[in-house]
């Protein structure tokens, strides 16, 4: 599972070499499944997206031009497949009109002030914290979660995210800001509790 996808011969992949394709699947399918889970929050849906991604990739490989890495290309296919499913299952997730500019509506958001930046890395990213981070993303409203996953977890640009969702860049930025503020507040409350535990020891 440690093979680097970008070291697999592109010529072999394009020629339909099934051994090379199996290597590609093994090197990339974990993260592909993860992003599908993050967008959809449902194991069966994520598995459907995973399978569809590789079926489409296998068919499209002969025409792959190599403008991006194979890994990036696969992730884009997976994101698009996941979005298609979101549109089918919950069409309002993407199209909901929340175009209103950001106008301090976060007055109502909890603004916990806990400086958790200096906590040791071991505390910030231990198993329990990671589970909390994952759950916090799942708990975001779907319209914010999709944007956060695409931009901050998948590293897509604002422009790419906007084009893939068919929303204005301002809309994407507003959703991203709301998602990040919520997650920041969640993490502040969580790590604040941890800091208190340490102080009480």
């Amino acid at each position, binding site marked *: 599972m440690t093979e680097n996808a970008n070291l697999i011969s592109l010529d072999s992949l394009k020629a339909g070499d099934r051994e090379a394709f199996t290597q590609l699947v093994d090197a990339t399918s974990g993260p592909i499944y993860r992003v599908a889970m993050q967008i959809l929050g449902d194991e069966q849906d994520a598995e459907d997206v995973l399978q569809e991604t590789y079926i489409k990739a296998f068919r499209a490989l002969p025409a792959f031009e190599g403008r991006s890495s194979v890994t990036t290309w696969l992730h884009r296919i997976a994101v698009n497949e996941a979005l298609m499913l979101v549109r089918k299952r919950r069409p309002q997730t993407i199209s909901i009109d929340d175009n209103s500019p950001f106008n301090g509506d976060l007055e109502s958001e909890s*603004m916990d002030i806990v400086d958790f930046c200096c906590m040791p890395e071991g505390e910030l990213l231990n198993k329990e914290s990671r589970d909390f981070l994952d759950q916090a993303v799942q708990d975001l409203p779907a319209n914010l979660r999709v944007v956060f996953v695409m931009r901050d977890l998948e590293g897509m640009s604002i422009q790419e995210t906007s084009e893939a969702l068919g929303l204005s860049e301002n809309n994407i930025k507003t959703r991203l800001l709301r998602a990040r503020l919520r997650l920041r507040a969640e993490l502040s409350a969580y790590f604040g509790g941890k800091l208190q535990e340490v102080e009480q020891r």
Partner: protein
Amino acid sequence: MSEHVHTPQCSKLLGSLSDYIDGDLQAEICAELEAHISGCDNCRIVVNTMRKTVELYEQTSNEPVELPQAVRERLLLKLDLDALRKKGQ
């Protein structure tokens, strides 16, 4: 843990926060924001912890993750690659 009391300037700052940590803020607003942060401890913490939040998520998203075994088996079966895989083992 304390609750942050917003001044109007803090609220305005919140709207620019995301662009700021992405380095996409116009120079003028950026300077205004940095001047505010230097005198407002709470806002400084909000900026820093938001940046840290995004960093933590970026870090976890770049780590390798394995596909659950059963999901992998069904995937290879679906792609008709399982026979090849078994042969290769």
